């Protein structure tokens, strides 16, 4: 668990981060969103002490980060930035091996770890290990950047607009991959973005920042249904709100008994997906299947519509 406690950063007279506190549970993904210049990157960089806080502290599993030598702290925290900052003079394998080598792992263990990560990120080791960053596509560079950050098995991963430079299709795939890897490794992640869709898609909790202050820290559903103030409400987007809400709810939760015609939808998909299928096919209801493919009921337009607004 990581606790951010009254963290403040001042440059001269200007407050860049103002008294921000929140906690991220073990194994969850917290997203920091906000407009440009809100202080998101500064907040993130205070966690691994690339920026020294003016006041406040950061606790990782109860341990104050100031008690840990800077470099050692950073060895333990993965860090991914926009543009990835891959070392142009080192090939993919050497890039990924950076932190393990700083930690003086023995070379066999390093090689093994590199191979493991290349597999995990679907980069064929034989093909990619010896390529240099300039020989990779943007999406591949991004994956190498994340693999490099995860190399020494950090318990915490900081990501500053990691998908900012990717096109929409690749970005969506990279987001899915990140979620899958996070579920698998149980890494705690703090991710900065200014893309609201990304925040809702990835975040277990979302921290909304504006002008150096933290306005609200809540689950996506709470943010939609009880925005703390006008700014959050506008940021969340009033027109998008119902659809965002629907994409947070699984079909499972709106399951009704009965039987409908047509191609079944999986219970694990979102109501947003179910609604689009209904609109597109012009039906009133869809059959629902569980993970094994067995039909377990149906989901109807009426049922979905009831979920697309705040509960009374």
């Amino acid at each position, binding site marked *: 668990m990581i606790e951010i406690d009254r963290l403040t950063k001042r440059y001269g007279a200007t407050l860049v981060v103002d008294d921000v506190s929140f906690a991220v549970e073990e194994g969850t993904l917290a997203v920091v969103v906000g407009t440009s210049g809100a202080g998101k990157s500064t907040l993130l960089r205070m966690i*691994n002490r*690339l920026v020294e806080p003016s006041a406040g502290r950061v606790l990782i599993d109860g341990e104050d980060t100031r008690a840990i030598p*800077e*470099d*050692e*702290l*950073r*060895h*333990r925290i993965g*860090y991914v*930035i*926009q*543009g*990835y*900052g*891959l*070392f*142009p*003079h080192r090939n993919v394998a050497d890039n990924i091996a*950076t*932190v393990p080598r*700083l930690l003086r792992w023995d070379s066999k263990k390093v090689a093994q770890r590199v191979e493991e990560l290349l597999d995990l990120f679907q980069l064929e080791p034989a093909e990619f290990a010896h390529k*240099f*960053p*300039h*020989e990779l596509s943007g999406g591949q560079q991004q994956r190498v950047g994340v693999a*490099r*950050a995860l190399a020494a098995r950090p318990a915490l991963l*900081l990501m500053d607009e990691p998908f900012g430079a990717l096109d929409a299709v690749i970005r969506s795939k990279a987001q899915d991959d990140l979620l899958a890897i996070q579920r698998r490794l149980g890494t705690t992640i703090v991710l900065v973005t200014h893309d609201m869709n990304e925040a809702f898609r990835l975040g277990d909790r979302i921290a909304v920042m504006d002008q150096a202050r933290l306005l609200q820290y809540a689950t996506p559903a709470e943010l939609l249904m009880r925005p703390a103030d006008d700014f959050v409400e506008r940021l969340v987007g009033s027109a998008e709100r119902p659809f965002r809400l629907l994409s947070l709810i699984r079909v499972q939760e709106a399951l009704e008994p009965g039987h409908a015609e047509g191609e079944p939808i999986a219970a694990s998909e979102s109501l947003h997906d179910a609604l689009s299928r209904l609109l597109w096919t012009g039906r009133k209801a869809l059959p629902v299947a569980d993970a094994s493919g067995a039909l377990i009921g149906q989901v109807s337009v009426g049922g979905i519509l009831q979920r697309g607004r705040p509960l009374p």
Partner: protein
Amino acid sequence: MTPASFVRLTALLVLAAFIAMPQVFAFLFEPLIAPGAPAIYNQGSLLVLTLQHLRTVCLATMVSTVLAVALGIFVTRPAGAEFLPLSRSLVNIGQTFPPIAVLAIAVPLVGFGEKPTFIALFLYGLLPIFENTLTGLTQVPSPTLEAARGMGMNARQRLVQVELPLALPVILAGIRLSVIISLGTATIGSTVAAKGLGEVIIAGLQSNNIAFVLQGGLVVALLAVLIHDGLVLVERVAARRLGGSLNEVS
């Protein structure tokens, strides 16, 4: 083999043959000389002069490189940052000094011979290497450095593992410039009695023997062009890994 590398190889062979056995080429120079004058430089061995010339240049360049790179590193660290603006200005000013002036001023201070030449080569050689070290170290992309810091590399590790390797092609280009300037200055060094290929040209000028002048000029020119090409090759290899984007830096 490309035509260009064929020309280079031929030039190298001709140069080596001429330095080793100049007498064989005497017939080429005979039309240029007054009757009775020697057609081939006869006051010393071309081979020995060439080696002495190269030795002076190598030594001076090595010393300049060590000092210039160390200074370049120093002024780009936080501790030396106060010296950065001044050192940039000094390099700009220093380059307005012609090498011959440095050479000439050194003579009265240290006497004739190798010493003033060495001093001039060393001092003048510092400038391009220092300048390129600065350029190389300050143009390391900031996301790369940010990532290095974020991964917990300390200042030393960042310098050795990231900044210097990335600056290497530019530093090498500086060393190449320095070597080429030094080859020329060392030639002029013969006017202050340093051993080197300039002797051949000076001897030709003094005895009005165009053949000597031409021989000296040819050997020095070919040597410079070939060394230049060789060093460019080394830079290419160093820059290739960086995606060739630094190939064009000169």
